[in-house]
């Protein structure tokens, strides 16, 4: 077994520095690496290019990095929940590249599995297609999309073991799975870190080979964005 566990978030993020490209998992506030984000704020690094489906809300998730103007560029599919984001974008302080969500996910997975490029129909005929190679398959035009390149991918899982194996919970799996191993270094924070051998090898969502460093997060607020309930 190859041990991947480190003691804390500080060790996990060693080597992260300004002007890097970071991938961060999560969908909305669901499954985001809270501990790593807090540490990125503390580190005070800036000029970050961020690949993440969303940009958090004003005072949580990636919104915390936006507040401190640590992010130079966001690569996302949907950023509608964040007023500070909109302000920085419209004022030109923040570069933004919007990408169809399925393409975003697949470009992460492509990086993970060594596929440099693939064709998808998403975005054909739209702004997204500008400058991209188009090829018809069965008469339907598709765009050539490339694997992302990132220095670090930072993800969050439910359970993990010291070998780096990960299990996600419910819809918190989202981008955390395809981002695993998609950056040069993959850091995973987990709610519960177990000794290798405690997880059923048949139930592992992401094998440890994709993860370089794993640690148990100190806190998880797990904030709910839209609390919707059914009346009894």
């Amino acid at each position, binding site marked *: 077994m190859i041990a991947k566990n480190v003691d804390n978030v500080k060790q996990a993020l060693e080597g992260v520095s300004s002007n890097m490209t970071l991938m961060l998992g999560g*969908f*909305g*506030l*669901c*499954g985001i690496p809270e501990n790593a984000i807090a540490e990125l704020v503390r580190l005070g690094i800036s000029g970050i290019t961020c690949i993440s*489906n969303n940009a958090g809300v004003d005072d949580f998730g990636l919104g915390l990095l936006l507040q401190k103007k640590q992010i130079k560029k966001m690569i*996302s*599919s*949907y*950023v*509608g*929940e964040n007023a500070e984001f*909109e302000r920085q*974008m*419209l004022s030109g302080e923040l570069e*933004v590249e*919007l990408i*169809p*969500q*399925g*393409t*975003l*996910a*697949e470009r*992460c*997975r492509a990086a993970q599995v060594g596929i440099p490029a693939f064709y*998808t*129909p*998403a*975005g*054909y*005929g*739209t*702004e*997204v297609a500008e400058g991209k190679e188009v090829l018809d398959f069965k008469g339907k035009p598709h765009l050539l999309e490339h694997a992302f390149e990132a220095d670090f991918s930072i993800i969050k899982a*439910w359970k993990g073991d010291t070998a780096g194996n990960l299990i*996600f*919970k*419910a*819809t*918190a*799996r*989202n*981008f*955390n*799975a*395809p981002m695993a191993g998609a950056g040069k270094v993959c850091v995973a924070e987990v709610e519960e870190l177990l000794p290798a051998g405690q997880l059923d090898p048949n139930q592992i*969502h992401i094998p440890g080979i994709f993860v370089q460093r794993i640690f148990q997060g100190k806190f998880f607020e*797990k*904030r*709910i*964005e*839209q*609390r*919707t*309930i*059914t009346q*009894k």
Partner: protein
Amino acid sequence: MALDKNGIAKRIAQEVQNGYYVNLGIGIPTLVANFVRDDLEVEFQSENGILGMGPFPFEGEEDADLINAGKQTITALPGASYFDSSLSFGMIRGKHVDLTILGAMEVAEDGDIANWKIPGKMVKGMGGAMDLVASAENIIVAMQHTNRAGESKLLKRCSLPITGVNCVKKIVTDLACIEITKEGFLLLERAPGVSVETIKKATAGTLIVPVDVPEMSL
């Protein structure tokens, strides 16, 4: 009388057939789930990673790790499954989802749709909409017939940046149910009490009006 949001959702629910996997967009489309006939076998997919999505949870049973694409807390029905975003859009791109229902800011008579950006004003992003409209074989748009300024949202050509080309099959608005054909917007049904004249006035694109346009039965 023009339909309210629930009325639009109710009419769209009639399009849901037995055995359908359905992706519901944010807004009116979400309401469709409430009106699908109980005797139909239907599963709802949310593109953030669940198939077999159930109703909102009871108070105290919300789980931050279990949400839909609108970031709302939800539940999972028996037979549900969770998966990652890559496989989720694999279901969509691979045409395994049978019906996509989503909102729009504009629809053109050739089936183009615009629903993600108002240049200089609103730039929230396309989310999964571009993937959905590029791949789904069966796309129904749920929207108001006109915008807040009273301008038609059914146009000859979209004026806003488009989300996808030649993809919308059907539109259900507060005024009418309309099919996209090669010749333009084909008026299938009127909302209860709404006249053909009203629909004509509210439609900027080519509207094809058959001799007989029945009222929706809701």
